[in-house]
Every structure is written in C-alpha cells, then in structure tokens.
C-alpha cells in the first residue's frame, strides 16, 4: 500500500442552520484517485473546500504527510501542494488567461511585472496539458469548457501533491475528457493523490481507485471501486432504495399541450423540436452549457426566440413573456430559487400567491381571508415546515423554500409546468416531496417539462427524454427502458461506448431506446 498523503479526522463544519460536515473521516494515498460521491448538498464541495483551505473546519484535524496542517487560505494550501479546481470558477473575466494563471503570484523583474516570462510559462503549461488556448485571450470571452481548461491549468501549475477536481468533466467535450483522463493517469504515476468529484458512475469507474459516499454531511462508506456497483452507490447516496425515492408516475397521454418545432433563440439554441402531452413528463437532460435550461427559459419568455414555432394548445405563441405565458397556463420554476424564484424578505404567504394575486381580488382589494385559507391549505398539503405563513421565507430551509415556490402552481390553473433543476440543493426527504408534487400534477393531466442535471431523476421520472447537446436536441427517446448510457452518449454528442450491448442492462434491462435525429 502506498504512502498516506492526506488524512482528515473528524471534520465538522457548520453553516447557519446546516451542519454541512459531521465528523467526516477521509484519507488519500499517493498515486490514487479517491472519488467523493453524494447528492447535491451532501457535503462534497464543503469537504474539498476544507481540505483546500477555503473553509476552516469547526472541529477536526488535517494531516498532510503525517504533519498536522491548518491552512489559512487557498494560497497557503496551494503553496504546500494542495490545489483545487472547483465547479464555480475562480477566474476574473476581465483579465487574460495569463493574468489569471499568475493571479496573486505574478512574476516580477526589478519590481515590475515580467510579462514575457509569464507568457512563456503559461504557453508551456497549456501545451503540456494539450489545451489549445490563446494565453492572451480575455477569460470573459472564452467558452465554458475553455474556462474550465484555464482553471485546470491554474491548478496544475507548480509543485503538486494533492489535486482536487470538482466535476471536472461537466463541460468538457469528449476529446478533452480523454485528455484529462490521460493527465490523471500521468499524475498518478508521479505520486499525486487526486480527489475526484463526479456524479457519473461510469466515469468514476474508469478513473477511480476508491470511493467515499457522503450523505447529509457524513461519510457513510468508503469502498474500493471494484466493490461499488451502481445500485449500491445510489442506495448509499440516498439512504433509500430507488423505489422509495422515485414515485411511479402513471400516464395516459392526452392531447398535445405544447408543440415546439425548430425552435431557435438569440442565445444559440437551434433546431429544437419536441412535444408534450397532457399527463406526460418530458425530461430534458444534457451537460452544463448544453442549453437545457435555455429551452425552458425561451418557452416561458425569458430568452428571445428567433426562429421556429411554439404551439400551445393549438395557439401559436409569438413572443412569449412571463405575463402571457401565465395567461396561457404555462408556469416556469427557475433553477436558482434565490435569484429568480422567491422574494426572500417577504412572507411565505406573499410568495405563494404572487403569481395569482388577481384571482384573490374582490372589488379591487385582496380578499385576505380567502387568500389566507388557501395558503394555509397549500402549506399543509405541501408539508411546508414551519407552517407559519407570515414569517419571512429566508428563515426556511432550502427544501421548504423550494416547496413554497412550487406551490405557486397550486394557486392558479396550470396546463404546462416547466421545472428547471427542481430538486437542486435540497435533501432527500424534500426531493421525494417535490417528485410527489410532480406526480400529482401529471396525473391530474398537466403537461410537465422536467429539466435536470441529475440523470437518475430524469431517467426515473420521465415518460419521454430529450437530450441536449451544444444547443440542440441530440436525441429523443422514450423514458421507459432508457439507460444512463443512452443518455450519456447523447450528452457527450457521440457514441460514448456501447455498454448496453455487453453490460447486462442494469435495472431497466437493456436499451430499447430509439434514436431520432434532432
């Protein structure tokens, strides 16, 4: 067994209202890839941030090569060989690639910046990693994948013993992914220990040596990769079986509610066609940046539509706005409930009825009694806790906030729901309730568009699946029988690997997916 590189003992980290990490133990050996696995909010990112010096743990100790460490900040950690590449970028958009790479540790000559030396070094590191990037380009003008390359290059500079990669493949193309994996192999050979976060089980199996599963801030298991299969990982991750989390949603598709033909937007979506029927859930999957969110936004009127037709119940929608969309019975729930969903300083009650206030009016005034009784009914039904309807909503937990936002759909008649990342950042219990909400709406006959980055939920909830890649529909398939591999291949925009043929078809028994060219 190789040398123990990094060891974290009993790490506890509390944020206001949440125990993000609860006595977590974790270790990393030289030359291994140790995967962190868990749901959003399980504490993976918090743990890596503690290890890389961004957060100070409340309790616990970190040992690097047996020596106790207390990193004051990420620079401190980096100078001791611990580097991290996060999902959110730590780049300054207005600066160039070189300036970003050397931010905070600029090379100087006689007190002035030594631009030539920095440019030369930057070129070398980019070439070394095989990234085709202009070091003089402004980061703000780069594509998401390119920014990720800069981020990775930044971490790879200098001497390194521990590298943390948080969802590194989220926006890379297939070629870039292969190159990244080659790099990882090379670094392992050099004795670097890598902490790797990803949701993609097949990808983990390829690169990982060991895997730790986090749930609700606790390390529930650390296994050798060989022992870990999908079903086991999922049940460890969620603490339940599939069937317990994902309700079975019956469908008897009715008439077509929404028909989209060759939709194009000013933000780069093109040739998008699909339809949704009454009582049907259409899942939209895709990598970050593939455009799945933009589809929902465009349909609701938040992005300019430049081409194609959108037909809502036989009525051609020209230039939708949130106001006209709501009138047509379309309701959209944004991915970022804090930024776009809720008015955090206002009460549960006001947030809930915000999109339906005119319906509560009597002679120009709001009928407060009727409003209150409606809100109380919904709060009870959606199991929002605490059930006080006059308290400001920012005192509620994420899951309860999400439920309040979704319950707007119960205050007025909705024919088409568009959910964007509806289960993002909430705990399993709340997720289950969100899914039940979805189920109820669909079974009552509403059409549902369910946009999500979590593959498992798209696979389990959707009656039809549309996979987005590079701003367009890469593949459409029926939800029943679709496997993770089918969807992933389409996500990456190429035939990922024909696993379905040689694998035993995991839980759904092989692929019956039919590919329709988008």
């Amino acid at each position, binding site marked *: 067994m190789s040398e123990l590189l990094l060891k974290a003992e009993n790490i506890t980290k509390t944020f206001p209202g949440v125990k993000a990490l609860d006595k977590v133990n974790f270790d990393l050996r030289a030359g291994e890839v140790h995967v962190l696995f868990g749901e959003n909010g399980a504490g993976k990112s918090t743990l890596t941030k503690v290890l890389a010096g961004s957060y100070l743990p409340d309790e616990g100790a970190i040992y690097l090569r047996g020596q106790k460490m207390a990193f004051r900040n990420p620079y401190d950690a980096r100078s001791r060989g611990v580097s991290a590449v996060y999902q959110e970028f730590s780049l300054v958009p207005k600066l160039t690639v070189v300036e970003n790479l050397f931010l905070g540790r600029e090379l100087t000559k006689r007190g002035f910046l030594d631009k030539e030396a920095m440019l030369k070094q930057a070129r070398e590191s980019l070439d070394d990693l095989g990234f085709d990037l202009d070091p003089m380009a402004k980061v703000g003008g780069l594509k998401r994948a390119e920014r990720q390359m800069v981020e990775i290059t930044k971490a790879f500079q200098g001497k390194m013993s521990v590298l943390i990669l948080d969802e590194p493949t989220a926006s890379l193309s297939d070629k870039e992914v292969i190159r990244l994996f080659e790099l990882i192999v090379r670094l392992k050979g050099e004795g670097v220990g890598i902490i790797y976060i990803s949701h993609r089980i097949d990808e983990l199996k390829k690169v990982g040596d060991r895997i730790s599963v986090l749930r609700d801030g606790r390390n529930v298991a650390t296994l050798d990769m060989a022992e870990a299969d999908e079903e086991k990982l999922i049940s460890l991750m969620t603490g339940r079986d599939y069937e317990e989390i994902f309700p079975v949603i019956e469908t008897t598709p009715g008439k077509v509610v929404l028909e989209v033909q060759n939709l194009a937007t000013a933000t780069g979506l093109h040739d998008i066609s699909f339809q949704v029927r009454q009582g049907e859930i259409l899942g939209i999957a895709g990598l970050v940046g593939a455009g799945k969110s933009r589809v929902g936004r465009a349909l609701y009127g*938040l992005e300019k539509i430049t081409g194609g037709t959108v037909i809502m119940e036989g009525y051609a929608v020209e230039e939708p706005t949130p106001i006209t969309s709501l009138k047509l019975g379309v309701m959209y729930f944004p991915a970022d409930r804090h*930024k*776009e969903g*809720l008015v955090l300083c*206002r009460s549960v009650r006001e947030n809930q009825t915000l999109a339906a206030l005119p319906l509560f009016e009597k002679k120009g005034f709001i009928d407060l009694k009727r409003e209150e009784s409606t809100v109380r009914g919904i709060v009870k039904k959606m199991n929002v806790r605490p059930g006080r309807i006059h308290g400001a909503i920012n005192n509620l937990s994420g899951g309860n906030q999400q439920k309040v936002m979704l319950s707007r759909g119960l205050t007025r008649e909705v024919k088409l729901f568009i959910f964007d990342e509806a289960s993002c950042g909430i705990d399993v219990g709340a997720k289950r309730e969100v899914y039940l909400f979805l189920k109820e709406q669909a079974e009552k006959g509403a059409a549902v568009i369910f946009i999500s980055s979590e593959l498992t939920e798209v696979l389990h909830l959707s009656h039809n699946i549309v996979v987005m890649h590079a701003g367009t529909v890469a593949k459409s398939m029926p939800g029943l029988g679709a496997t993770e591999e089918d969807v992933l291949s389409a996500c990456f925009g190429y035939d990922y690997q024909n696993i379905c043929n040689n694998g035993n078809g995991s839980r759904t028994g092989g692929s019956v997916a039919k590919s329709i060219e988008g």
Partner: protein
Amino acid sequence: MDLLKRIFVKVGVLPFLLVALVILFSLAEHRFMSMSNLLNVGRQTTYLAIVTAGQMLTILCAGFDLSVGSSVALTSIVTSMVMVSVADPTTAMVLGILAGIGTATLVGLANGITIAVFRVSPFVVTLGMLSVAHGLALLISSGVPIFNMPEQLNTILGLGRVWGIPVPVLVALAIVALIWLLLSRTRVGRYFYALGGNREAARLSGIAVRKYTALAYVLCGTLTGITGVMLTARVASGEPNLGANLPLESIAAAVIGGVSLRGGEGSIIGAIFGAILIVTIRNGMDLMNISSYLQMVVMGCLLIFAVVMDQFRLSMKGR
C-alpha cells in the same frame, strides 16, 4: 435585553431614538412638552409625512427619489402662477391646485419611465431631475417669490381647521390611510414589495415590473405635488426655493422608520413615525436655540446612522 434586541430586529432603531429624544428634550427644555408645542410638532410633521409616504413607495421598489424637494418648489411656482392669472378665486384655486399636482405627477412620470423602461439608476435619474425641476422653478419665477394669491388658500388649506383639527393634518391622515390600504390590501402594494425584494422573481411571477416601478414614482410625484400645494398655502406665496431639505429628510424618515433601502421591506406606519422623529428633533433643537447650520449637520449624521443601523439589523436578522 433579549426583548430589546427583538424589538430592534423587528422595527429598527426608531423606538429607542424616539424615547431617548423625548426624554432628552423634555429635560433640557420645559416648553417642549407643552400642549401648544406638541400641536406644533403635529402640524409640522404633516408635510414631511406626506412626502415620506411617497418616498417610501419608491424605496420599497428598491429605488428612491432625490427630486422631491425640487418638485415641491416647481409645484409651488406653477400653482401660484396659475392662481395669480385667474380672476375668480374659486376657479383660480381649483385650477392652481390641479396644475400644481399635475406638474409634480409629470415629474414623477418622467422619473418613473426613465428608471423603469430605460433601466437607468434611480440615483442618476432623480439627481438629474432635482436640477431640472429646481431650474424650471427658478426659470419660470425668475427666482422671486409670487404673491397675491387668493386669500382662501391660506385661510382654508394653510391655517383652517375642521372639527378643531388643522386641515393639513386631516389631509395627511387621509393620505396615510390610503397608502396603508394600498400597501396592505391591494395587488399594487404587494407588487411593490415583491419587485423591490426581488425584481427577477417578480418578473417571473408575471408582474409587469416596469409598469409598477414607474407607478411608484408617479405616486411619489403626486404626493409630492399635494405637499407642494399645501406648503404654498401655508406660506401664502409661490416659493422657488421651497422644500430643499425634503429629499434628505424624507429618505431619513423612511429608513429610520424601518423601510429598507434594499427594497421590499417596510411599513407606512414606521415611515410616518420616522417623520415624526425628524420633526421632533428639529423642533427640540429649535427650542434649544441650536443654529440651523448645526441642525443640518445633525440631520446628515442621523441619515447615515439610520442606514448603518439598517445594515446592522440585517446582519442580526441573518443569525
């Protein structure tokens, strides 16, 4: 101690200040607590209270209006010039009042459209309008006050009483009641709070964000116009320099009264108590013979203090 903290987090620094000041002034100056002085405070408060009610609406929508003072001056000039040019006193008064309030409403409309439709910051727009409106008032009046207005204006609107209550106080009470209804019982009020609290969330909820933002400034303009007319009636002349303190005092009153400058939070009752506090301070300082220059210093400090407290309150709330 815990109770005090809860009061602070809930309603802000206002109750503490008000209690402290009343004690301070009544100890320092025996005339302060006299009935006639308290009535005086009440009457003086009315003007600031109406402007503060308007100011509050724009602050709820995460903006503010620096042009309220100039708008009062412009209203005063327009009202008095119209009144002077019409012979029949009753017609003159009606036309003058309508013209004055109309002018201020137009100023508000211009503010509102520029801010809401072109998305220019309220700071820049209303700062510009401050200069525009004051400039216009000086231009039209050549910088000199306008006299010879119908006497009834002063005797009724300025000094008149109904059921023993001064007319300005009645007008202010009616306006406060209306604004209270608007904010707590109509969709307009809810939308003001919502779009001030989170503009994007309001937009996604199908609220015509631009329309309602503009409406807040229009209403602020109208209320400012009413104040302008009433002040003109009080001083019985058209004054191109009326209301210079109002922007600062109305913003300070609202913020001290718990209306958050970030938008989306605050009540009309709090804002009115804020106005009462400011008038009380002014009155107390007058009685204590504190120079008006020093009073300016105090008012400025008070505004800054109120905002600091607001920020502090936010951080306590977060915990």
